[in-house]
């Protein structure tokens, strides 16, 4: 390829020649075989790159070649797609484990916080009622009533069985109170689980409570038919 005419070709191609210069260039093209051959070759470059379909194909092939070269340079582990799956599975397991452990830790923290709140009730500025309710809640945390069960209605002719567990050495007295606020039954002395109330009780709603000499432990209600 003869490059000595390159500037001339460019000016002609870009329409930068004056009309007179353009005419003399075209005459020279007709008379000078070397110039003519160089011009045709120059045009054939434009022709080659104007083949859009072929250029598109070559660009895609070049990209595929470069992608493959990049892929070859990757560490062996990442070349196979199934390795990515293993990696994803491992990450999922690690994340799940982390979440579960975090939840367990949070739960323990929450329990500890609750206990510490109960323990610091006296030192904080709560109203007397709040303090009493929190102390009541604290006392009842370990009180589990197994009987009577969740049924609301009980037959007053049947003996009423109370069964409970409590994590306290304080003796508990069991009392039953009617809707007027009268104590219709009291164990009198500390009751031990299981405890059966054999007394014939009046029909209607009854509140039962467990208490020590100074404080209430557990309160519930039932309906005797």
């Amino acid at each position, binding site marked *: *390829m003869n490059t000595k005419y390159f500037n001339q070709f460019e000016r002609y191609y870009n329409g930068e020649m004056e009309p007179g210069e353009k005419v003399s260039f075209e005459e020279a093209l007709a008379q000078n075989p070397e110039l003519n051959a160089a011009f045709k070759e120059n045009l054939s*470059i434009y022709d080659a790159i*104007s083949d859009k379909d*072929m*250029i*598109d*194909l070559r660009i895609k*092939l070049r990209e595929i070649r470069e992608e493959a070269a990049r892929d070859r340079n990757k560490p062996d582990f990442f070349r196979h797609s199934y390795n990515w799956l293993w990696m994803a599975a491992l990450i999922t397991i690690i994340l799940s484990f982390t979440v579960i452990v975090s939840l367990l830790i949070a739960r323990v923290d929450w329990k500890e916080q609750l206990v510490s709140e109960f323990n610091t009730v006296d030192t904080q500025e709560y109203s007397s009622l709040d303090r009493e309710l929190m102390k009541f809640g604290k006392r009842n945390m370990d009180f589990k009533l197994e009987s009577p069960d969740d049924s609301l209605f009980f037959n007053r002719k049947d003996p009423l069985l109370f069964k409970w567990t409590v994590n306290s050495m304080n003796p508990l007295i069991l009392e039953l109170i009617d809707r007027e606020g009268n104590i219709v039954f009291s164990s009198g002395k500390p009751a031990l689980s299981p405890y059966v109330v054999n007394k014939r009780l009046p029909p209607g709603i009854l509140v039962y409570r467990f208490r020590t000499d100074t404080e209430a432990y557990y309160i519930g209600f039932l309906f005797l038919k």
Partner: protein
Amino acid sequence: MVHYTQYGITEGLKRNDKDVLKYVYRQYFPMVRYFIIRNQGSEEDAEDMFQEAIVAVCQRVKRKNLALDCAFKTYFYSVVRHMWLQYLDRNKIHYEFSDMDEFLMLEDKELYDDFQSKKAIFQRRFLDLTELCRKVLLMVVEGTSYEEIALTLGYKGKQYAIKRKYECMKSLINRVINDPEYKRLSQ
């Protein structure tokens, strides 16, 4: 990976479908590489030959229907084999093919003409330009005005667009005249 039938491959090649091209590369490049390296070639030669063979086959399927009475693999292998043989002949490299694989005697002369043409060299060297240069030159050959090129590519004005095109064209010509195949063709 998706599997393409013979029909799927030829239809994909007609459309320059990149997925199909990738599939063909993954499926058949190892075979081409093996053949070229065993027959005086290098890894680079294998890559070049694969690309040129794909271009030739694409041209062929776009020009006329390719009714294959053999597997695409056999056809493609035969194209590569013929092209490589021509390349060795042109470069006066002695060869004795060691492949015992199945191949076709392809007499489709026009299949190989493009591979040896200056046009193919111009196109290959064009791809070596920067993306911006390629864009400028493609816009010029598409008939886009220099004002529009300047506007699209964010140049200061028409004159700067002309200057950029001049530099890109000069860069392309320098690459072409330094191409060994071009030198051989121009002798």
